[in-house]
């Protein structure tokens, strides 16, 4: 009797094992990434975007080490994420383009103004309470920027169409954390979800140029970025010209390096014509220098 039970048990165990080998590959398909995405989409619907926004704000709070306007001071909250990809703790790179630099300086002043949201305390309770809260405006530095990454990863998972999540995470990954491969992978993921994003292509180009020193791929990405910008932005009533300036100036620098001064001049003229630079005189001066390097017959063009 006992033996029969053992045989039955073994028989069932063998059956379960066989069934598992058959079902396991199928089960992997059931819980595949797409299905999980669909499940999350069904469960959360459009609230995914709200949650993704909230997680992006959480990354911003971490970037400010907890110094951030509360829900009652949200009118002071940063309106864009430019401050998230600005490095306060480094001297600017010698070959940094003037457009990004002057835009940064302007944004920094705006950001400082916006973040001084703490009004003078009205009474002793508020004055004493501030001793426990974080009351100084600082940004993460020296590799601590990595602390914002989990929130950006989760934000991208919830709303893959949020472009600045990819560019912000990639910026810190490649700049300070030495994770160019991870940055590239994340940007590619973003590009797959947002094929028409010139911002992601601009960041990809920067990665190839600054981290891999691969001018060819950088140029290809920036050309693609310029094309996407031309396809989408000029039709808008208020086109976002800052990225155009950043793309075209970088592209012009590569063209100049490779001796195609005429193309470099055309790109710089494009920036000036779209008023994509706060300092057009510097670019005009650069054009004059480039024109001198053109062959004799083509200088007047």
């Amino acid at each position, binding site marked *: 009797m006992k033996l029969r039970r053992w045989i039955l048990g073994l028989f069932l165990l063998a059956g379960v094992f066989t069934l598992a080998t058959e079902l396991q590959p199928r089960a992997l398909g059931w819980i595949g990434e797409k299905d999980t995405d669909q499940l999350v989409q069904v469960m959360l619907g459009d609230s995914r975007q709200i949650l993704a926004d909230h997680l992006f704000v959480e990354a911003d709070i971490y970037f400010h080490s907890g110094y951030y306007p509360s829900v009652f001071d949200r009118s002071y909250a940063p309106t864009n994420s430019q401050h998230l990809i600005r490095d306060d703790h480094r001297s600017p790179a010698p070959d940094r383009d003037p457009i990004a630099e002057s835009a940064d300086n302007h944004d920094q002043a705006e950001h400082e103004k916006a973040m001084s949201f703490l009004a003078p305390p009205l009474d002793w*309770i508020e004055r004493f309470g501030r001793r*426990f809260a974080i009351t100084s405006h600082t940004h993460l530095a020296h*590799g601590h920027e990595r602390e914002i990454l989990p929130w950006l990863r989760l934000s991208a998972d919830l709303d893959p169409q949020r472009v600045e999540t990819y560019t912000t995470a990639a910026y810190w990954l490649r700049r300070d954390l030495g*994770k160019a491969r991870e940055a590239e992978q994340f940007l590619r993921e973003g590009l797959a979800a947002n094929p028409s994003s010139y911002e992601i292509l601009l960041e990809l180009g920067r990665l190839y140029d600054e981290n891999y020193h691969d001018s060819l791929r950088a140029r290809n990405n920036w050309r693609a970025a310029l094309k996407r910008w031309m396809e989408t932005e000029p039709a808008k009533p208020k086109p976002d010209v800052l990225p155009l300036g950043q793309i075209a100036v970088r592209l012009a620098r590569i063209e100049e390096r490779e001796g195609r001064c005429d193309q470099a001049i055309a790109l710089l003229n494009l920036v000036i014509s779209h008023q994509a630079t706060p300092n057009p005189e510097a670019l005009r001066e650069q054009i004059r220098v480039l024109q001198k390097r053109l062959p004799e017959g083509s200088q007047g063009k």
Partner: protein
Amino acid sequence: MNSVFCLAGIVIKELYRRKDFYVLFVLTAIITLLLGSVNFFHEDKIVRYVKDICLLLIWLSSLVIAVVTTARQIPTERESRTIFPLLAKPVTRGQLVGGKFLGCWLACGIALLVFYLFFAVVVGAKEGRLPLSQYFQVIWMQWWMLAIVIAMVLLGSVLFSAPSANATICFAAILAILILGGHLHRLAAVQPSPLGQALSVLYFLIPHLEWFYAVRERLIFDSALLGWGDCLLAAAYAAAYVGLLLVATWTVFRRKILTV
């Protein structure tokens, strides 16, 4: 005084006999360990989100333990009629209130120590450092905040008919203070006269628990240590509220008819 400590001892024994603490601790541990094991961009040194979530769970758990344990102390004694032999010992009603408060407060303190020991082990393993002074300040501030909460719930337990109603109202009040407490006076400034004045009175009346909660953020973001004088002042502030609330509890309780 001896009877107060005896009563406190019984409350502490109750905490470790009941399953509330174990369930909350295991949940906190599982969630923290699961989150801590997630890998973001192959970066092993990311730790603040683990600190954030673990501390949030510790705060929630300690609040649940404090409110639920305290809310049932006096009503259970009355329902099971064990309050009569207790008061016949003789234990005065004031000693009963004091003993129950001290027991709940010490029990919460023990629970906090266990929670923070776990926190220190997990975070220390990831961060590679152990800022003991900061941990001490956070535990100190949280423990004093829990003292106010316990005194508040104890007052609720002699005012409201059922422990569940008391717990719900206290949770709502604590949440409201944590979210709105620091902003009431600014809201009051923009409201018309009677409402604005009422909000102002409320602002100066409520215990400002949000001060104590803010210390949690300082630990997450590795901010500088608080001044020790400020910690002592905050404790004195909490002690003043605890005293007021316990006196109010005793005043209501000594006139209370104990038969259910």
